[in-house]
């Protein structure tokens, strides 16, 4: 754990705006996984997701001393990343191979979400397969909710452009759907929705 874990996001933004690299690094370590989850929730390739996340950080960098409410920087970043993802999708880059020699992320490989499946135990792999077979909306919501550390509902709402009050019910519906998909795939009653099990 970093010493800044007790510091508010707003304090980190203000310190970064004052020129402290450490505060910037702490912002990155605190929210990079959220931005990654959002980009993957939009089903961008590894390279496109990395580009969208990087562009979002550049956007924050040039707006460090302009953000109207620094405490809500996570939601600001989530909105920014959402827009970058939509731009990428609109430009039809979704399946395009990444150009060689690009930016500082040359080391990023071209793996798809499914490749990581090989690292999973069988049961978890079934769960992941079922997840990747869900609707875009459910996948996006659940993927963002998979962020470590767990994101605030405000950030989730910003990433999906949905009312905060809808997140809980939508999450419940998506998880129920996931259980149904798993039950179909595995004929395992253990995945039945809560309340329907014996």
């Amino acid at each position, binding site marked *: 754990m970093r010493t800044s874990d007790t510091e508010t996001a707003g304090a980190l933004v203000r310190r970064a705006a004052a020129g402290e*690299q450490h505060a*910037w*690094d702490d912002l*990155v*370590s605190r929210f*990079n996984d959220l931005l*990654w*989850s959002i980009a993957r929730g939009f089903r961008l390739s590894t390279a496109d997701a*990395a*580009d969208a*996340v*990087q*562009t979002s*950080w*550049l*956007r924050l*960098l*040039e*707006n*460090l001393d302009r953000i109207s409410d620094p405490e809500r920087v996570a939601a600001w970043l989530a909105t920014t990343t*959402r*827009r970058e993802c*939509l*731009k990428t*999708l*609109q*430009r039809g880059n979704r399946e395009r191979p990444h*150009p*060689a*020699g*690009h*930016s*500082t*992320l040359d*080391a*990023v*490989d071209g793996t798809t*979400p499914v490749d*990581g499946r090989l*690292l*999973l135990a069988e*049961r*978890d792999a079934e*769960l*992941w397969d079922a*997840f990747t077979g869900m609707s875009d909306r459910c996948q996006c919501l*659940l993927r963002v*909710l*998979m*962020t*470590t550390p*767990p994101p605030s509902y405000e950030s989730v709402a910003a990433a999906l452009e949905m009312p905060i009050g809808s997140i809980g019910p939508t*999450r419940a519906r998506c*998880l129920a759907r*996931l*259980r149904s998909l798993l039950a179909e795939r595995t004929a395992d009653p*253990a*995945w039945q929705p*809560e309340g329907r*099990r014996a």
Partner: protein
Amino acid sequence: MTIDLSDDELSTRLSEIATVADPAPSTLAAAAGALFGLRQLDAELAELIRDSADAATPELAVRADGDDRMLSFEAGAAAVEMQVSERADRRDIVAHVSGIVLQAATLETLSGQHSLQVDDGVLIARDLVAGPLRLRLTTPAGSAIVTSWVRI
């Protein structure tokens, strides 16, 4: 093991799986940290106010001829209109700067800077590698304007 998982337990399980199956590339956070060195405090920001590729602002989206992307930046009276043409992984840009007297212009990418020839407020750069880019513009008085980063 997975019997009787509650929704919260199922969510936790999914989070654990995501960290194994789909982690952010290790280079990504380091690269984001290194971006801090690109901060420019001496220049006024010309914000991106229009982008034909931005689905979030369709009312502002303008289409140029063909598939060219049009970007508009503004800082006070200064305005930059940038047209981006795409050829595979290469990009050509033509930018028109108005509202200020332009003395010099620099094109900045994450890997370096290149001076651009200024011709009556028009800047041209060809055969650029796709990726983040911004323009730094200076006036004869020495004041500087830098555009928002855009990924072309």
